[in-house]
C-alpha cells in the first residue's frame, strides 16, 4: 500500500482550519440528508472536532487509525479528500469506497484510515492488530483507535486493552466521552471511570478537555511519543459533546434524554470558538470554497452500476453465485 501524506496539523491555524472543515462538512452532510441524497442518514461529529484534530496532529504519514460509526471527523483529520468522502456518503463511484461503504465504513487505506466501523468497539482490536504488526516489522508506526464512551462496556474493547498492554503495542486508545451512548448517559452505563479502567490494565491514562484542540494535541503527542519509544499503549479520555442528535433520524423523534440547558452549556464551549486564529475569517471562506468544490465533485459522481453489486466481495475476485437462476 503506497502511503499518501497525512496533513500537518501543527499550527493553531492548521488545526482551526481542519476543525472548520469538519464542521462545514457535517453541516453540508446534514443538508444532503434532508435533501434525501444521503440515504440512511449519518451520525454527525459536530462538536467533537477538537478530538479528531488534536489526535491526528500527533500522527504522521504512515500512522494509522480506526474509527467509529461517527467517523467523518477522524477520516477528514487524517487527510481524506472531502470530495471523495462526500461522494461516498452519496453512494457514488468516485467515493472513497466506490460507494460500497457509505458513512459507517468510509476508509482510505492509502492514508492509514482503516475504516469507520458500524459496530461499537470493533475498531480497537483491529488497531491493536495493525500496530502489533507494524511493531513486529520494525516500524515505528502509531495507530490511534477512536471510540465512544459506549464502547467502554464492550467486551472486545476491554480485551483489546489487555492485549495491547501485555504486548506493549503502539496504540493510542482515544475514548471520545460525549456523555451518551445514544440515549444512555455515560454515568448510567460506565461503572468506575474511563481512565480508571485503562489504568487497571497498566495503561497510562489521562482525561483531557476534548473541546480544547491544543490540550488534546499535547496529550496525544505524549501518547504517540510513548508508543514510538516502544513504551506501549496509552489511553486518552477526551471529554466532549455532540451538538446534534445521535443520528440524523433523531431530528424526527421526540427524545428527552438531554435537556436544553446542558446542550447550550456545551455549545458555549464550541471548540471552534475557544481560541480562533486571527485569520479565522479567511480560513472559513477558503474552507467554504473547498467544500463547494467537494460537493460539486460528489454530486457529479456516477451512481454505481447495479451489475457491480457484488464486485469486491472477495479480494481474489471469486464470483459468488447469484441469488436467482435465469
Amino acid at each position, binding site marked *: 500500500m503506497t502511503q499518501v501524506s497525512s496533513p500537518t496539523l501543527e499550527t493553531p491555524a492548521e488545526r482551526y482550519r481542519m476543525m472548520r472543515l469538519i464542521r462545514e462538512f457535517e453541516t453540508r452532510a446534514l443538508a444532503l440528508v434532508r435533501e434525501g441524497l*444521503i*440515504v*440512511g*442518514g449519518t451520525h454527525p461529529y459536530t462538536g467533537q472536532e477538537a478530538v479528531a484534530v488534536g489526535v491526528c496532529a500527533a500522527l504522521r504519514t504512515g500512522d494509522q487509525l480506526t474509527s467509529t460509526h461517527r467517523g467523518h471527523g477522524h477520516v477528514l483529520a487524517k487527510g481524506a479528500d472531502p470530495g471523495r468522502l462526500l461522494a*461516498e456518503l452519496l*453512494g*457514488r463511484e468516485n467515493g472513497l*469506497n466506490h*460507494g*460500497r*461503504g*457509505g*458513512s*459507517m*465504513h468510509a476508509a482510505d487505506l492509502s492514508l492509514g484510515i482503516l475504516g469507520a*466501523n*458500524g*459496530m*461499537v*468497539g470493533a475498531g480497537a482490536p483491529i488497531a491493536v492488530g495493525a500496530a502489533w504488526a507494524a511493531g513486529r516489522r520494525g516500524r515505528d508506526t502509531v495507530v490511534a483507535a477512536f471510540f465512544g464512551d*459506549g*464502547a467502554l*462496556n*464492550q*467486551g472486545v474493547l476491554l480485551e483489546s486493552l489487555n492485549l495491547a498492554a501485555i504486548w506493549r503495542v503502539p496504540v493510542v486508545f482515544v475514548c471520545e466521552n460525549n456523555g451518551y*451512548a*445514544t*440515549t*444512555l448517559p455515560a454515568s*448510567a*452505563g*460506565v461503572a468506575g471511570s474511563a481512565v480508571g479502567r485503562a489504568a487497571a490494565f497498566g495503561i497510562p491514562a489521562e482525561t483531557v478537555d476534548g473541546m480544547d484542540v491544543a490540550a488534546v494535541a499535547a496529550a496525544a503527542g505524549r501518547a504517540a511519543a510513548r508508543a514510538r519509544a516502544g513504551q506501549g499503549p496509552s489511553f486518552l479520555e477526551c471529554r466532549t459533546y455532540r451538538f446534534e442528535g445521535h443520528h440524523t433520524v433523531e431530528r424526527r*423523534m421526540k*427524545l428527552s*434524554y438531554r435537556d436544553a440547558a446542558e446542550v447550550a452549556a456545551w455549545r458555549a464551549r464550541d471548540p471552534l470558538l475557544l481560541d480562533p486564529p486571527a485569520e479565522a475569517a479567511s480560513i472559513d471562506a477558503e474552507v467554504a470554497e473547498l467544500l463547494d468544490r467537494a460537493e460539486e465533485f460528489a454530486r457529479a459522481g456516477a*451512481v*454505481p*452500476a*447495479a*451489475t*457491480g*453489486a*457484488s464486485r469486491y*466481495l472477495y479480494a481474489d475476485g471469486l464470483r*459468488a*453465485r*447469484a*441469488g*436467482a*437462476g*435465469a
Partner: protein
Amino acid sequence: MSWLSYPKALNRALADALAEDETVCVLGEDVGAGMAGVTLGLRDRFGAGRIVDTPLSEQAFTSMGVGAALAGMRPVIELQIPSLLFLAFEQIANQAHKFSLMTGGQARVPLTVVVPGSGSRLGWAGQHSDQPYSLFAHVGVKTVVPATPSDAYGLLATAIRDDDPVLLFAPAGALPVREDVVAPLVPIPLGSARIHRPGTEVTVLAIGHLVHEALAVAEELAGEVDIEVLDPRTLHPFDWEALGDSLERTGRLVVLDDANRSCGFAAEVLATASEEFRLVAPPRRVTRPDGAVLPFAPELDRALQPSREQLRTAVRGVLKGGWAW
C-alpha cells in the same frame, strides 16, 4: 379494531405480557426511550425496573437474560440491529439453546430475543443489513419471522410464554406494513404456517416481508398462473405438513427468501421438498447471492435483494419445468 402497525403490534404484545406476568421484563439498548418503536411508552407504564436500559454489552446482558430465565423470569432482550446477534452468538447458540439438554431437563430458558428490523434498511450498509435467521434455524433455536402485524403480535405473545429461547426477527421491510385488525389479537402457536392466498399451480413459500412481494406477484400473474402463497411464520419448528399439503395440490415450488443463498432457509425448504414431497418439476429459490454483503449505494443494495422480477422468472421457470429425465 382499527389500523395496526407492525411495531405497534409488537409493542402491544410486550405490554400485554408485561401486564399479565410480572416475571416478564425487557432488557436492551435504548429500550427506555423506545428508539426502535417496539418498547415505546413501556417504561412509563411499567417502570425502569422492568424496562431496563443496558450498556453496550450484548454478550453479558444476553447471558444475564439466560441467568434471569434460570431464576424464573421471562426476559425479553431487544437487540437493535441484526449483527448484534453475531456478538451474542455464543450466548444464544451455546448457552441458552443448550441448557435444557445439557442439564438433562433440569433447566428451562424462557428467553425471547427480538430484533426490531432485520435485513436491508437502505443506507445502513454492510454491517447493519443482514438477514441471519437461517443461522439460528441451523443451530436449532426457535426462530420466528412474522410478516404481518397480527402475526407479529401473536407470535411474540407465544414466544414470551414459550419455555425455550425464541428469536423473533421483525424484517425491516415488514415494519411499514399496517393491518386493519378486526378479530382480537391472539397468540399464534409456533410452527404453524399460514396460507395467505390459496392457489393450485405453484406454491410460493415466502418469508417475512417477502410474503407481501409474493402476494403482489401472485395478483399480478393471476391471469397466467394460480399461485398459492404460503408463509411459514416460524422457521424452526417448521410446519412441514402445511408445505407437504400445499405441494400435494400444486407440485411446484418456489421459495422467496431474503437470506444468503448457500445454506439459507430456502435451501432447507428445497432440500426437504425434494426428499419428501411431491414435486412435478425442479423447484427454484430466489435469495440473496452467496455470501452477500450489502453495499451502501441504494442501487447496489437493492440489486442484491430478491426482486419481483426474479420471482416472476422463477414462477414461469417451474411452470415450464419438469423432470427432464
